[in-house]
Structure formats: structure tokens, C-alpha cells
């Protein structure tokens, strides 16, 4: 029944814009444990899509399927199709490193590298072969500006990235990703470990970025999902130890006001989780 629902939705919702990611019948396994089953979803270009659901329902797992971060965990397996602009992400010969450059990722815990702020941002461009100091300077400034943190750090670019406050660190991490010009930005609970003022700044940032970048955000905070996203996907693992499913996917406004599934409604009204 879940599958039917999920495969019905796209039709309705998809009319709105181009699909950046198309996921069909995705199953994911940690060893023998089937964490996700039969996920079908379309992620719209230049929009913010939120993933919500109780803890452990596989939101992060699914997010990490999109840029093949799960490849790094030994013993995991992904079945089904994930397409980026129509190209199979798991296709033969696809370079996951290049994929990850195009599909950037922000984590719950801000994780600047233990190097200077400048080097943090320059890391990506350098990886991909940029060497000239002037070019790097330009990219660093531009990225920090886009990440809304330039003003705070412009005079201390030589300081260690870890000396910043949590919220600044998180924006530094965003700047670091922006420096490699990703097309998609995956954010896994980017605001749950930072202070309210910084949360505000990050949320503003997302609104600005989505003109040029497709954004997917996992959040526990329903208010946040409602505030920032255009589309929302609700995941649920109904029984401990069983696979999680995508229960409902819709425009955020629709999903929060008139959820079609009773379980979605229970969740967003706080009846469990």
C-alpha cells in the first residue's frame, strides 16, 4: 500500500518543475538489515525538499544514497535506480568522487578540517586542481560571502576553523561546499547542533541558494521543514528491525495541512516520535 502511494504521488507533484534526482524502487541494506525499501521519489530542481520522520527511519541513509556516501560503509548495498539529471548514479564507471563534488553535503555536526579558515574553503578547489593563489583568494571570498559568514571571518582567515563558534563553523562548512560549485546540496540536520541565531542565518541562506542549487534537507524540526521547504517527504519505519518506507511525498503546504495518510497526520501532530 505504501508503495502504491509513493508511486502515485510523483505524477501529481512532478508537473511543477524539472527533476534533479529521480529515485525508483530503491532498497538499501546495511549487511543483512534492510533499512529502506521501495523508495520512489523525484527531487525538484531549484527547490528545497525536506525529509522528515522519526529517529531511525532512514532519512540520513537515504540522503547518503544520493551522493553514494554509503559506499564508504563496508557491507552496505543499494538496489534500485538513482538518477541525477537522468544519468544513473550507480552506473558502471561513474566516479563517486566526481559525483560527490556535484552533490555536496552538510552534516549535523559542523566538521571543519583542523586547518585555517582559508584552507578549509580552499580545500575543495585545490582538490580539483586549482593552484593559483589569486584564483583561490577569489573563490574563498566568494564562497564565504555566499555562506553568509564573510563578515565574521574576513579578518581572521588564518585562524583555525575549529576556533569558530558552532554556528560559524556550520556556515564555514557550507562555504567549503559552495566553493566547489555543487549542483545539489544535501543537508543532514544542519541546524540541530547550532545556536538559534545561526539557525536563522542558515535558513535565510537556503532561501537565497535555491535559485541556483537544489537543496535537500533532513530535519527533525517540523516547524523548520514548514518554513524552509517546498516539498516534504515523510519516512516511517513501522516496526523496529523492519525496513522503512516513504509514506507520503507532496508539496510542503499540502502535506502539512491536508496529509493524505493517517500516519503522516499522527506524526506531524506529535502523536508519536
Amino acid at each position, binding site marked *: 500500500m505504501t508503495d502504491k502511494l509513493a508511486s502515485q504521488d510523483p505524477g501529481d507533484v512532478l508537473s511543477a518543475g524539472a527533476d534533479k534526482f529521480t529515485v525508483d524502487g530503491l532498497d538499501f541494506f546495511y549487511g543483512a538489515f534492510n533499512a529502506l525499501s521501495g523508495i520512489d521519489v523525484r527531487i525538484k530542481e531549484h527547490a528545497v525538499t525536506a525529509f522528515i520522520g522519526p529517529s531511525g527511519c532512514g532519512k540520513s541513509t537515504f540522503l547518503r544514497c544520493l551522493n553514494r556516501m554509503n559506499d*564508504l560503509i563496508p557491507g552496505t548495498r543499494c538496489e534500485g535506480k538513482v538518477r541525477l539529471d537522468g544519468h544513473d548514479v550507480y552506473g558502471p564507471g561513474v566516479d563517486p568522487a*566526481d559525483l560527490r563534488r556535484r552533490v555536496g553535503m552538510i552534516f549535523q555536526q559542523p566538521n571543519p578540517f583542523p586547518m585555517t579558515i582559508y584552507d578549509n574553503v580552499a580545500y*575543495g578547489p585545490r*582538490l580539483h586542481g586549482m593552484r593559483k593563489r589569486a584564483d583561490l583568494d577569489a573563490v574563498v571570498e566568494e564562497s564565504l560571502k555566499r555562506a553568509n559568514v564573510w563578515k565574521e571571518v574576513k579578518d581572521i582567515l588564518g585562524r583555525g576553523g575549529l576556533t569558530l563558534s558552532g554556528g560559524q563553523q556550520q556556515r564555514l562548512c557550507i562555504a567549503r561546499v559552495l566553493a566547489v560549485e555543487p549542483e545539489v546540496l544535501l543537508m543532514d540536520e544542519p541546524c540541530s547542533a547550532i545556536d538559534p541565531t545561526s539557525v536563522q542565518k542558515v535558513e535565510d541562506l537556503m532561501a537565497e541558494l535555491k535559485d541556483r542549487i537544489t537543496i535537500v534537507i533532513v530535519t527533525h524540526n517540523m516547524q523548520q521543514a514548514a518554513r524552509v521547504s517546498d516539498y516534504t517527504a515523510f519516512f516511517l519505519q513501522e516496526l523496529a528491525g523492519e525496513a522503512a518506507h516513504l509514506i507520503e511525498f507532496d508539496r510542503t503546504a499540502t502535506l502539512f495541512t491536508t496529509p493524505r495518510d493517517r500516519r503522516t497526520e499522527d506524526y506531524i501532530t506529535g502523536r508519536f516520535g
Partner: protein
Amino acid sequence: MSAGSPREGQAQAPAPQDRGPAGNGGLSRISRATHLKEALLRNAFLVCACVAVAGVTLIFVFVGYQGWPIFAKLGIGEFLGGRVWYPTKGLFGILTLVVNSLLAMAGGLVLGAPLAVGTAVFLSEVASPRVREVTRPAVELLAGIPSVVYGFFGLVLLRPIIARVFGGLGFGLFTVWVILGVMIVPTIATLTEDALRSVPEGIREASYAMGATKWQTIWRVLLPAARIGIIDAVILGMGRAIGETMAVVMIAGNAPVIPDSIFKPFLTLTTVIVMDMPYASGDHRTALFGVAIVLFVISMIFVASIRVISRSRGEGD
């Protein structure tokens, strides 16, 4: 107070043995016996912990007492700076031995440190769990093999091979480097692996998520992030190399000169003790204890520099 007052609850409680005077609903005091016992135990443990301090002090006192006269007699400059070690002629300059020890250590490090760091990176970043299951015990076993066995192996297998390939007798720096290089691998590798593992997982993920390859992540993020730990490990390896005795004595050739080739025999600070102790007496024996003082001080310098480096990290980022 109401019916179900706490005192009722207590009435059913198993009566604690040494409940203090105020047990009647108030808070009981620590009983004298408990207090004494805890204090006594605490101090007993403290004494045990201080055995380590006592050990270092005793070493300093005993070895110092036996070896100090040579410094007094010759003067520190002549003992440390004298170039000729010729006990039967009454010449006790150990500069040659110091230089040889440093040469042996440096070469062992140049061979061993990259091997060890490579192995550590392999264990922590590259190996699949199954391969790691085999490799790590091998590294640990390498640490368990007694140094006399390394020496024996070097003497009966490696030395003849080197003699055949490079000519000469097979004794010399090169042979020692190879053996020391292998011997310090476990020391450096296990500590480096620890350092790499303590780099937060998030940093690894962040790097991969930006499109870095495994090697880029290792080279640009992990090794720099673990660098303090790696430096510590290398210094410990240096200590191990310069203090190594039994393996070196069998393959060094023990000539008390600075060798003019890496295939020529040489004598070090540690091996001079093994070679001469059986027959040394008088000033000669005192001088050997003097050499032990020098070795002790060198090892203390290594430990202290690890301290300093680790502390500077605390203040740094």
C-alpha cells in the same frame, strides 16, 4: 508529614551497617570507619602510583652514583666530546659512540617510519575489516618478538645476504638500519593508527563528500590532522631505536670508530656496554655507567619533547 513518610520506607530497607547518628530521617554522616578506610586505601594507591616516580629517581641515583665519577674525572666536555674510545689506553671519549648511535637511529627511522606510517594508514583507512583482522595481529606480533631474536635473525640470515650482495663482511650501518627499521614499525604503527582513528569521522566524511579521493583525504586531511600523534609516535620510535641493544650488538661489528661506509663495522652507546661489561673494571666500568647516564638522559629528552609537543597542541588549535 503524611502517612507514607520516608521513615516508613526506611523501616523496610535493609539496615545499612554504619548508619551515622542522624539516621533518623535526617541525613547520615559519613562514619569514621568508612572515612578512615577510604582515606587509607586512597593513600595506599597513591604510594603505588609513586613507585614509578621512585623508579626513575632510583635509576638516576644508582646509575648516576656509579657513573658520575667519570664525568668528574674527565670533565663533561672531554667525556662527551672526546673522539677516542680506547679503554685499554685509558681513553674514554664517547663522541664516536654518540655519533654512531645517532647514525643508526636516523637510518632506522628513515626506513622504518614510512613503513610504519604506511602500515598504520593501511590499517586505519585502507584495509577491509577482514584484511585488518590479519594485519593488525601481525604488527602486534612483530612487537612481541624479543630483540635478541631480531639480532639472531640479522646475524645468521640478513648479514650474510648483505655481505654477498654488497661485499665486505656484512656488519655495519646498513644491516642495522634494516633490522631497526623493522623493529620500530610496531611502535610507530600502533600509535599512528591510534592517532588516525581519533580523527573525528565527520572530517573524513566531509572530505569524501567534497569529491576527494581516498588518497587526497589521507594526504591532505588525515595525516595533517593526526600529525601531532604521528610525531609523538616517531619520537617514541627514535627512543626505541637508540636504546636497542641486543639486536644491534650482533650485527654492528662493534669497531669503535665512525665508519667511512655504511657497510663497515661500528660501535654504539648501547653495544659498548654489552661488549665491554664482562671484563671492564675501574675507570672503564665507571665510563660504561657514564654511557648509561647519557642513554638515560637521551631517553628523558625524547619523553620530555613529546610532552612539549603534545602540550603545544593543547594551546594551538
